């Protein structure tokens, strides 16, 4: 039986069929790069090889890491990025619009059947659309930009099935923290994960993106979800070109070699992951009474429109606890605009939130805003490695936007269900 991953890779490599373990060269439909791993790193390599990008129409450049620039170095990175984009005649250039994984999808660039690479580890996000997408480093990206090709070893497919429906105030983020808790950060073994089951298909596209995004935390190469009507509708609204044969990518192969992992969504409680690994997750209740300094709603993982809306659901008519700072960095300008239009931003503001630019912000630790020595942060982001968001002895806990908002209100780690009748 052919898996979705195999179909996507077979088509990209021009083969009839591919078998698990085959090493094949694939043609890249789209290469996405950002200001950190992108132009400043690939430009010197392409110059050395005396090559321009193989197809400017297949390259998307997004500035999000050093946004806003705050000193001479970061301003130089932004200038270099702009100059290179114009020099290479790349039309798909999104300057300071938001985080690459969100910007590229909200502009309809990713559709079922594509084979894509991104210069960022959270590139599996594109898998939520039934495309094969994975992250690469800068030298490998330069190779892609020079040739339009990349090698892959055809992966096994690890099916992760979520049966039944989630309870209120439990989210895709909780599903992923539970998965990290269950199989560990190496559990994806650099194979392709495919999510399935009723709870997955109930999710909106932005929540599905959270699932695929955190396939990176599981160490998988890709995090696929078979496309359905929700996928099609999102792409149509985003102005993307839905391929006529998109339904042919609706492949579910739940009982393949390697047993499927099965979870019951209905019994899942909100999760919190303790420092310094997303795999250190447990039910939020296990962390009660731990005080926090910073509550952070940010990143491609946790500050999309649905995430902002989730936070607002808890924060409506309430305020952030004394001693806690709630920082919100919407994932994109579009997410922010939607949240403004329906009053979500106002609810957050009235609760005492502080807003940061629509960029990677504190999550990547690249910006000027960082955690201080010893600070405890509860964050809706994907990753809580030591020192990632600032000082080496700062402590980052991970949770859903509901849990971050609830904890911002009480001042300590809180299961959001304690604050709302559900």
């Amino acid at each position: 039986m052919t898996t979705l991953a195999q179909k996507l890779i077979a088509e990209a490599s021009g083969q009839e069929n591919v078998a698990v373990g085959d090493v094949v060269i694939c043609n890249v439909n789209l290469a996405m790069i950002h200001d950190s791993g992108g132009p400043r790193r690939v430009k010197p390599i392409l110059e050395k090889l005396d090559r321009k990008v193989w197809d400017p129409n297949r390259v998307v450049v997004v500035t999000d890491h050093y946004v806003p620039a705050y000193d001479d170095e970061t301003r130089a990175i932004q200038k270099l990025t702009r100059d290179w984009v114009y020099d290479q005649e790349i039309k798909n250039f999104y300057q300071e619009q938001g985080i690459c994984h969100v910007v590229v999808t909200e502009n309809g660039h990713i559709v079922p059947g594509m084979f894509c690479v991104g210069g960022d580890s959270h590139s599996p996000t594109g898998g939520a659309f039934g495309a094969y997408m994975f992250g690469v480093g800068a030298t490998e990206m330069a190779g892609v930009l020079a040739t339009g090709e990349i090698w892959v070893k055809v992966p096994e497919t690890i099916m992760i099935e979520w049966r039944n429906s989630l309870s209120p105030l439990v989210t895709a983020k909780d599903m992923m923290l539970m998965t990290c808790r269950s199989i560990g950060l190496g559990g994806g073994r650099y194979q392709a994960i495919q999510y399935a089951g009723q709870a997955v298909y109930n999710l909106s596209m932005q929540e599905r993106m959270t699932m695929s995004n955190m396939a990176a935390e599981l160490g998988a190469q890709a995090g696929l979800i078979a496309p359905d009507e929700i996928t099609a509708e999102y792409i149509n609204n985003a102005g993307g070109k839905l391929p006529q044969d998109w339904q042919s990518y609706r492949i579910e192969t739940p009982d393949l070699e390697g047993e499927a992992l099965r979870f019951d969504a209905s019994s899942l409680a909100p999760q919190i992951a303790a420092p310094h690994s997303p795999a250190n997750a447990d039910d939020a209740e296990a962390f009660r009474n731990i005080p926090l300094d910073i509550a952070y709603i940010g990143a491609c993982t946790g500050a999309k429109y649905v995430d902002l809306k989730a936070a607002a659901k808890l924060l409506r008519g309430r305020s952030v606890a004394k001693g806690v700072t709630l920082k919100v960095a919407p994932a994109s300008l579009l997410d922010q605009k939607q949240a403004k239009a329906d009053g979500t931003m106002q609810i957050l503001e009235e609760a005492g939130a502080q807003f940061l630019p629509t960029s990677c912000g504190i999550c990547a630790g690249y910006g000027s805003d960082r955690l201080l020595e010893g600070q405890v942060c509860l964050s809706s982001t994907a990753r809580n490695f030591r020192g990632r968001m600032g000082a080496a002895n700062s402590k980052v806990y991970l949770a859903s936007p509901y849990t971050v908002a609830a904890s911002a209100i009480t001042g300590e780690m809180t299961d959001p269900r304690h604050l709302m009748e559900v």
Partner: protein
Amino acid sequence: MGRLWKFEETIDTDVLAPGPYMNAPLSELAGHCLEALRPEFASSVRVGDVLLASDNMGAGSSREQAAEVLKHLGIEAIVATSFAGIFYRNAINLGLPVFVLPSSLTDVPQLKDGAKVSVDFDQSMLTLTDFDMDINLEPLPNFLRDLVADGGLVPHLAKRFAG
């Protein structure tokens, strides 16, 4: 010949190439490599040393500097019980040999931090020189071996474009 730097904990890309220094030149970034785990690492590591790590070596970000700083500091090869996929590809693309250790870190008690070692790239072998002991490592697939032997992806592509 070099010394072995042994890490029992998972090494992620944030401790290899910490975000706050990612806008600095490579030499400065390298100075902070692994400082959250072993503050003396960057200043004491020498050319020819070998890094020995446990599972999921290089987990996390796609930032290639995580592998590049190790090469810059003189690390000759990385041996680990398993590697994170992107880090593995990055190291090979930079011409830094990476080998999977087929046993666990504790199976061979002589694999101690500071042990004198050498790596035979062609034979995929780690030698503990004090014990005259050879440890077989999993060989790289042929086409990845060629990539590393060429010095990484850039020289490899340069060769291809010239040919």
